[in-house]
């Protein structure tokens, strides 16, 4: 979707104003700690994928997405997912009173202190075999489709319709567009190099942007 999250190339946000590395805390308030922890713990219930989480944040009103701080967006996304997955009812979220305990099957998946050490070192790989061999080879010229899907996608607006060069095949990874709908399908993933001049117009600098793009986003270019 062409949401406020797709920020590459936008103007007007001003200076970065980075806090000094030596003194910036990991969290800036206790509520941020709780939101981070709740998102991780609720995610362990297995009711949604990380692409569904990203899409839940992206689907906020663009003004809200840009006005909110980072963990406010996480909180808004978490509330949306708790409702959409049926883990909470709208009534429960509004009144903050539980209508009853969650079902046994869900509660058996609750993240406990004894699970945490394992969860911290174990990731969940996104690789999944694709149907058929990769269509593109390193060095090949490709164009990103000029598509504007209303759902979740990981093709940023600034590469759509632009031509680049396959840098590497990254194997087959879960396609986010489908994963955001709860469907797991492996598609070939490539690192694609785009020259700065192709993306942003005439540029004197010899700069470039590498973007990871799925085969589904690309077509051969002459």
């Amino acid at each position, binding site marked *: 979707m062409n949401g406020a*999250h*797709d920020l*590459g*190339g*936008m103007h007007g*946000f001003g*200076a*970065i*104003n*980075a806090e000094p*590395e030596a*003194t*910036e805390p*990991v*969290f*800036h*308030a*206790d*509520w941020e*700690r*709780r939101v*981070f*922890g*709740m998102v*991780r*713990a*609720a995610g362990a219930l297995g009711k949604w994928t990380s692409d569904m989480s990203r899409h839940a944040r992206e689907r906020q009103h663009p003004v809200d997405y*840009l006005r909110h*701080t*980072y963990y*406010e967006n996480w909180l808004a996304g*978490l509330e949306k997912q708790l409702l959409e997955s049926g883990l*909470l009812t709208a009534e429960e*979220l509004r009144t*903050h*009173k*539980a209508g009853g305990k*969650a079902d046994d099957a869900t509660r058996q998946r*609750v*993240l*406990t*202190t004894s699970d*945490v050490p394992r*969860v911290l070192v*174990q*990731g969940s*790989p996104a690789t999944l075999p694709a149907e058929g061999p990769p269509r593109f080879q390193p060095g090949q010229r490709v164009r990103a489709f000029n598509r504007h899907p209303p759902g979740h996608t990981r093709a*940023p607006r*600034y590469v759509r319709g632009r031509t680049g060069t396959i840098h590497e095949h*990254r194997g087959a*990874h879960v396609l986010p567009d489908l994963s955001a709908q709860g469907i797991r399908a492996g598609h070939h993933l490539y690192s694609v190099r785009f020259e700065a001049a192709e*993306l942003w117009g005439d540029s004197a*600098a*010899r*700069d*470039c*942007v*590498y973007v*990871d*793009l799925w085969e589904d986003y690309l077509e051969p270019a002459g």
Partner: protein
Amino acid sequence: MSEHHHHHDHHHDHDHTDPPSDLELRVKSLESLLVEKGLVDPAAIDLLVDAYETKIGPRNGAKVVAKAWSDPAFKKWLLEDATAAIASLGFTGRGGEHMKAVENTAKVHNVVVCTLCSCYPWPVLGLPPVWYKSAPYRSRAVADPRGVLKEFGTGLPEDVEVRVWDSTSEVRYLVLPERPANTDGWSEEQLATLVTRNSMIGVEKARTTDN
């Protein structure tokens, strides 16, 4: 159990991180509700948060970089299969399943961004700083990387190619900075002190031996 972290709270003057109290209440109420439903265990949340505040951070990445500077075989492995090379030092988990290391040289400078959200190599760098997740960085890093680098005090000659890596998939990028001059014979532990978080994102170079 989270009380022992309160001393980390910084009461600084950024409006955008000073939440209204209704936000604090909203978060507390949501957690209480989830506990009442039996969906989260607050002690597990405490442990997760504590790990990202005290264990999983950029000192891990600095060890990877210092080893690559010291051990050519490890550096080769890191550039060929960063996931396995990094895992061999014990750094695994969410955000580190598919790692790529990109090497800075006299002619190439790499910098990492996630324009669409905040993808970042957690096992080696921890959770990202506020600026990495912010609209100014995410909007400008791909279109004006030299302007962004200048804002971090990093000037590059025109003949150096800037490569920006936009983290649009589950692949996560770690910049391997150039080894600073005058560090011959330094131990990995000494070298690691020169490796900053920002140098592994690519917005700065590693520290030099005179600062």
